């Protein structure tokens, strides 16, 4: 089994790529802010950026090692996407349609896998995911696109819209109905090489003008009795929905990396203003309101980093639970980052509204670009719905814990190796309880025993243990509510169920922060490992999402948080758990 190690201070890929790309404020660098401004203003496809990314062999990171690529772990792939997104989210999203290749790595034949690996790495192939339809949106099972069996394959008729890279890309993953009477088993997935299709039997819809990601090719594709080969079927006939839902688990978690990159840039460009601009004889950062917003933003980034990193590791460590982790990450991280960016706009003031001037008008572009992440690849509503359906069944599985300590270590200890990814282990619904929530007791016991043995700051540990106890009570209350609940089905769920799902995600986020610190605090001497961020982070989650207020705790922590934020900014390091060094030339 291949093993991958990621240490808390080891950010090889991030730092190497940052060094290669340099300072995004330098217009001469690839994917610079000036370039990003140009493609946004002119609504041009980011051809130059995409060419640079292929030239730099970065497409290999989407292809598994056994197929000649460089993919080792989802954490690494997330690191790369975050670095690209902090420069230009539009280019990052355009390039990252490559993550749909995981459909083939999961469900394809060996021949299909080899073909796709070659297509991506040797022929610079790119792809789109053609699931959505104008009349059905997220309701995939209602597809009007029909794939009819023929003597030597299938014939596809239907329209897919709106689709990212439907026009500028050679490959198309199409979900179509092969048996209209078979319900969820009536859908099949096809991997179509457009160069092999009859150009008279398919056409593209024009690029759609969008609020953000304005350089992207958001368009559509129409098939009219288009013959496709039998070999283009991915998985077995009737397995399309199953494969599609498993594929979404992967891409939903990776989407969080796009939001994290955008969040870093929004905070950095705001700090570049707040640390230089004087108002009322004070630097903006020293004004209490601005200091509050900036320190809250820093906490949000650290919280979301803990949620994303463990979510990405969960695919290797507990793929049986990925349907939970992916939906939580996809709901929590983009919505938190989008709100955070909106909040930061107040500190930047008038400059937030300008499409030029302060750093090439980056802030307003990030604000618009980032807003799409909570929408695509399963919207906020879709993800919350996928979670709420599982609450009763999860509450009934609490007793089965197995080797929880080993699983928690694989998910959260960044010095622990994660197993190689096995796509076939992804499950449509979780067959296990959520280890982040049900493992809080285990991690707190570990912390207690460490405190008893030796610790530098017992009072801080006691505060963390007290928050941990409150978290366990809240998790217990959630489970108690659902263990005796009735089976819920369908899409007509109540507003109260959506609120319960939002709270569930917040509980998972708090638990992820707690585990991340407990399992890594002795790994390094970093700000993250010292732990001064953890109590305010937990207090912020409790305050924002659970209605349990700890303003005093957060306010007392602000000077230390701001000090660290200034240090990271001065040293040009990422606002993240790893505090990776950023490109500077």
């Amino acid at each position, binding site marked *: 089994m291949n093993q991958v190690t990621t240490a808390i201070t080891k950010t090889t890929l991030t730092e190497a790529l940052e060094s290669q790309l340099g300072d995004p404020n330098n217009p001469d660098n690839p994917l610079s802010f000036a370039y990003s401004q140009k493609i946004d203003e002119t609504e041009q496809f980011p051809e130059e950026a995409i060419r640079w990314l292929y030239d730099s062999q970065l497409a290999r990171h989407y292809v598994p090692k056994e197929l000649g690529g460089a993919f080792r772990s989802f954490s690494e792939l997330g690191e790369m996407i975050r670095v690209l997104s902090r420069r230009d989210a539009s280019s990052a999203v355009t390039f990252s349609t490559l993550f749909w290749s995981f459909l083939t790595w999961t469900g394809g034949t060996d021949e299909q896998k080899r073909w796709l690996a070659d297509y991506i790495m040797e022929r610079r192939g790119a792809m789109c995911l053609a699931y959505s339809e104008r009349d059905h949106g997220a309701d995939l*099972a209602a597809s009007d696109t029909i794939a009819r069996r023929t003597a030597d394959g299938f014939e596809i008729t239907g329209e897919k819209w709106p689709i990212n890279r439907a026009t500028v890309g050679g490959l198309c993953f199409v979900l179509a109905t092969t048996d209209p009477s078979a319900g*969820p*088993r009536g859908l099949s997935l096809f991997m179509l090489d457009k160069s092999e299709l009859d150009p008279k039997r398919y056409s593209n819809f024009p690029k759609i003008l969008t609020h953000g990601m304005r350089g992207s090719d958001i368009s559509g594709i129409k098939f009219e009795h288009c013959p496709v080969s039998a070999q283009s079927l991915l998985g077995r006939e009737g397995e399309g929905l199953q494969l599609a839902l498993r594929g979404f688990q992967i891409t939903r978690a990776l989407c969080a990396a796009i939001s994290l990159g955008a969040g870093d840039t929004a905070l950095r460009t705001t700090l570049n203003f707040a640390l230089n601009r004087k108002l009322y004889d004070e630097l903006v950062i020293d004004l209490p309101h601005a200091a509050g917003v900036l320190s809250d933003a820093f906490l949000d980034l650290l919280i979301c980093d803990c949620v994303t990193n463990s979510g990405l590791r969960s695919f290797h460590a507990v793929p049986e639970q990925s349907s939970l982790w992916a939906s939580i990450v996809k709901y929590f991280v983009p919505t938190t980052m989008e709100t955070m960016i909106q909040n930061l706009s107040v500190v930047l003031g008038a400059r937030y509204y300008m499409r030029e001037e302060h750093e090439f008008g980056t802030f307003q572009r990030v604000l618009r670009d980032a807003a799409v992440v909570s929408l695509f690849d399963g919207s906020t509503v879709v993800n919350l719905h996928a979670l709420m359906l599982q609450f009763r069944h999860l509450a009934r599985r609490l007793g089965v814990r197995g080797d929880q300590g080993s699983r928690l270590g694989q998910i959260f200890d960044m010095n622990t190796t994660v197993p190689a990814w096995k796509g076939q282990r992804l499950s449509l619904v979780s067959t296990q309880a959520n280890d982040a929530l049900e493992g809080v007791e285990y991690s707190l016991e570990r912390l207690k025993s460490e405190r008893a043995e030796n610790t530098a700051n017992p009072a801080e540990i006691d505060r963390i243990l007290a928050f941990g106890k409150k978290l366990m009570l809240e998790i217990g209350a959630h489970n108690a509510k659902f263990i005796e609940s009735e089976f819920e089905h*369908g899409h007509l769920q109540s507003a109260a169920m959506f609120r319960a799902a939002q709270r569930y995600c917040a509980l998972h986020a708090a638990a992820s922060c707690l585990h991340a610190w407990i399992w890594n605090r002795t790994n390094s001497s970093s700000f993250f490992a010292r732990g001064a961020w953890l109590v305010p982070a937990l207090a912020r989650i409790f305050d924002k999402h659970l209605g349990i207020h700890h303003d005093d705790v957060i306010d007392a922590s602000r000077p230390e948080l701001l000090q660290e934020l200034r240090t990271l900014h001065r040293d040009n390091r990422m606002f993240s758990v790893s505090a990776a060094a950023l490109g500077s030339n």
Partner: protein
Amino acid sequence: MSKAKDLNEMKDWLIKRISTSLKVKNGMDPDAPFSKYGLQSIDAVILAMEIEEEVGVELPPTLLWEYNTVNECASYLVKIGSDIAA
């Protein structure tokens, strides 16, 4: 664990079991797809897991996708010799 059910007993049990979960009030047509009663994709997988807890054998998570009506599902469950533990 009770004795193995014959086909008619299994149909009756399934209609009762699924009607309760889906809150079907006016009876189920044993030949109608489950989607007619509001069952979608993911919730069908969860219901299959609940049914698995109540019969004596491991079931595919997509049981209710593949055997999309009471009649199809009952035939499958009888064929694999499942008991009803509930």
